[in-house]
């Protein structure tokens, strides 16, 4: 896998949603690529921040609406 392909898949490597074959290929590239290593760290922070957005789940979701 070349740099461009690997870089384009980094977000899904950070999110843990790449398929196994792609995961191995991207990880192999990252191991030898300083730029991708830094980007992967940044994307890890992005993942954490996006996932941490606070929400209060509306009461409505605790009481399912009856199908009409």
């Amino acid at each position, binding site marked *: 896998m070349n740099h461009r392909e690997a870089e*384009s898949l980094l977000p899904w490597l950070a999110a843990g949603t790449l398929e196994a074959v792609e995961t191995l290929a991207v990880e192999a590239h990252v191991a030898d690529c300083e730029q991708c290593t830094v980007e992967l760290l940044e994307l890890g*922070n992005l993942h954490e*921040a996006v*996932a941490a957005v606070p929400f209060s789940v509306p009461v409505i979701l605790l009481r*399912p*609406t009856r*199908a009409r």
Partner: protein
Amino acid sequence: MVDTEPVPDADIELVARVATGDKQAFETLFTDYGERVFRYAHRLIHDVPRAEEVTNDVMIEVWKNAAKFEGRSKVSTWILGITRHLALNAVRGKKLDTVDVDLAPEIVDPSERAEQGALADEREGLKQKLRAALAELSTDHRDVIELTFFQGCSYQEIAAIVDCPENTVKTRMYHARKQLQGILPGFGLDAGAYGAEGVAT
């Protein structure tokens, strides 16, 4: 993966039961997906009451169209696709250039926060800035970020949800990342270590 993904086969079976008019199955589906649908709708709409309306509309669409679901995608992909469609319809004509991050109360244990100290406050501040930066992205770009990092979707699933080629998903992600880097270099890393001047505001 952020959320615990239900077993796909079980979900397909659940939708099949919904298609026969099984209300118990519908309630189970609502319990499993209602919160995900609401969160995704809220991220597109930034309005709790309207996101609730969209959530109910989505589940009604699921109820009405369950028989049409052919199982060619994951149930989550199908439901999030419906959510996106209805949420974007709901915001059509409404300019969403800001996001109120205080819209919902923050779920933070005060005692835990005190223990975390200044470092945690700093990280929380960066998260707040990042969330504000996300609000500056176009809907297409924010969508791919949020489906990836919040909904835990693969790029293939995102392509199915937003109905575009997989390469378009990757391209949108690339531009979204570059835009975010311009707003907030490093997403909280030590920006100085990489030649940046600091966190933009």
